């Protein structure tokens, strides 16, 4: 194992020499962010390499306007909100879902299927499924949309704000002042979209795209391969997670996404509006579409005062450089979503690197 780490060290040094400066690798997956910290990788690697946490945490990249719209639905007596757990503590302009749990209409679900079950169990309520996440969670939402239509379930409403990873990666590289030399590509998302999906990024922007698994050594291998490509100036798509990720991905999942959703322009926290980056239900599912049926609308809203989550998500700032970090914004009193989610960059920095004690 230490041998493999040493090999990575050599590649990092080569890449640094070749670029003549520090190298910046963005991990586009919240699970990578957390596992990098948990494994102590930041500490083990040389200073010449920086890992930037990208827009890979579903809750973190969700626009403030959407969160406020969910909160407005939670305040309605006829609605039950079915949401993934990460979402409940994200602050909106008027509290969070967690502060509304005493209303009894906020249900944490682990899968979209649970939302469908809730609809069946509560026929006199409108079940609103907070459909967020990337290509990983979109297929499950598509499945329940189809099942609800087939089974004639009339009280399930899907509030879709699913996001697509590739448009966001392109948007990041299209920014003038980005610092990204390469991407460590998300494992789970790549299982669905396939590693070939990154080819346009390599071709257009000449950046290495290497898919990594989640074990510490798989992450080390990915970094090693990225640095080798940077050193040799041979950017390419590669996968060090071949057991799970194929070039073409999961065709069945891709098909159901295509058949259920349209990719439309949509807002991301920090990145703003990105063309064809957001999945909305197709017209044939309009009876399930929360936006159409429940009169809920959301428009882009600026982040809450002082919160720099947007900058963090673009790799332009490390969390400790935010003025709120560890002061008014902590995991107990989060100001922005990156401090809430277990996948969030700010929470990871706070939990695993903050060297102050709790009484200070």
């Amino acid at each position, binding site marked *: *194992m*230490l041998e493999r*780490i040493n090999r990575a060290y050599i590649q990092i040094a080569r890449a640094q020499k070749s670029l003549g400066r520090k190298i910046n690798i963005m991990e586009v997956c*919240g*699970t990578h962010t*957390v596992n990098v*910290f*948990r*494994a*102590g*990788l*930041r*500490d*083990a690697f040389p200073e010449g390499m920086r890992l930037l946490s990208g827009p890979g945490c*579903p*809750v973190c990249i969700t626009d403030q306007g959407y969160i406020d719209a969910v909160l407005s639905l939670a305040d309605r007596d006829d609605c039950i909100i079915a949401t*993934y*757990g*990460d*979402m*409940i*503590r994200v602050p909106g302009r008027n*509290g969070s879902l*967690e*502060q509304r*749990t*005493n209303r009894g209409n906020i249900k*944490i679900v*682990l899968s979209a299927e649970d939302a469908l079950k809730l609809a069946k169990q509560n026929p006199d309520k409108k079940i609103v499924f907070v459909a*967020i*996440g*990337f290509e*990983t*969670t979109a297929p499950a939402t598509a499945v329940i949309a189809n099942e609800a239509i087939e089974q004639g379930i009339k009280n399930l409403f899907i509030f879709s704000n699913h996001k697509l990873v590739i448009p966001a990666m392109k948007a990041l590289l299209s920014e003038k002042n980005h610092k990204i030399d390469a991407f460590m590509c998300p494992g*789970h*998302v790549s299982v669905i979209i396939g590693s070939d999906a990154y080819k346009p990024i390599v071709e257009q922007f000449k950046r290495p795209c290497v898919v990594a698994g*989640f074990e*510490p*050594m798989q992450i*080390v291998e990915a970094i090693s391969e990225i640095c080798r490509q940077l050193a040799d100036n041979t950017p390419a798509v590669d996968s060090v997670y071949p057991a799970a990720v194929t070039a073409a991905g999961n065709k069945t999942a891709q098909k159901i996404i295509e058949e259920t959703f349209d990719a439309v322009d949509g807002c991301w926290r920090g990145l703003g509006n990105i063309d064809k980056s957001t999945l909305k239900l197709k017209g044939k599912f309009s009876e399930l579409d929360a936006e159409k049926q429940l009169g809920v609308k959301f428009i882009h809203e600026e982040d809450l005062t002082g919160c720099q989550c947007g900058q963090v998500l673009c790799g332009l700032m490390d969390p400790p450089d935010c003025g709120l970090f560890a002061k008014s914004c*902590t*995991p*107990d*009193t989060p100001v922005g979503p990156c401090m809430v*989610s*277990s*996948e969030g960059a700010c*929470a990871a920095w706070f*939990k*695993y*690197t*903050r*060297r102050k*004690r*709790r*009484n200070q």
Partner: protein
Amino acid sequence: MTAGDKILLAHGGGGRLTDELIHSVILPAFENQTLNKLTDSAEIRLGKDNICFTTDSYVVKPLFFNGGDIGKLAVCGTINDLAVAGAKPVALSLSLIIEEGLEISILKKILASAAQAAKEENISIVCGDTKVVEAGSADKIFINTSGVGLKLSKAEVGFEKIAAGDKIIVSGTIGDHGMTIMSQREGMKFESEMKSDCGSVAQICAKEIEVLDSDIKFMRDPTRGGLAATLSEISDQTDLGIEIQETQIPVNPTTQAAADMLGFDILNIANEGKVVIVVSGQKADECLEICKSCQNGKDAAIIGQIVKSSEPLVELITMIKGRRIVQMPYGRELPRIC
């Protein structure tokens, strides 16, 4: 207090909010030296004997889980709180708050299980109370148990005994209870393969004290907040650092997989039949052997040590020889999205 001056679920999570609630709201109401120590059991002098006294309430969903149920949990949990304080459990009370509508057959099953757990530890449930509340006012059944124990004459455990160079032992695989409950609650595919560690550590604690007396510096059952909360508290209370080795911490691979799937840090997950022991460096191997000779301590391991440090922190030396900090968990663990 923060977070809008209302009780949140996270206030009961065993992490920082729980800590804050206890210190800013509960302790000020009762101020006294015995309570302020916040030990697992209070120590009271009665005549020439030192008596340990503890209480705990049990709310668990589902009521029955792989490896135990709320009845066994209520008995073992309170026995463990006495045992880690260096006491021999003598008697328990058991009080029930029952929601209207609970099937009597379920109640019988829970009580039989509690009785069996008490019998195995040779301890009697000597008093109790029963209340029924209307449907919706409780979730099926809540149980409170209190326990008294006789402090073992050789026991000299306490934060103040801990010193740099002491070793840290955990009596077996961590996170099994919390992950079993969570996966059973969520119907995850692992559920049949995982088993809660719900059980007593009284045998381990008594044997350790009997053989190693003052070399056993401190014991704690790492329940809510898991190993992370217990180690953070040791570091906080002693102003000493702690180093633990990731590769030495016993973890059941299925439990680890379930935690990974939900995005949880295994160090933060609750245990209900484990003890963390701080022992003098020279007696660590002996302490480990004693643990391993006990029924509930077969997977015990030395996981780290107490260190002198300018920054009293708990640090984990990871598999790849990196370092990261282990802290008291924050709020409630929330499953991640993908």
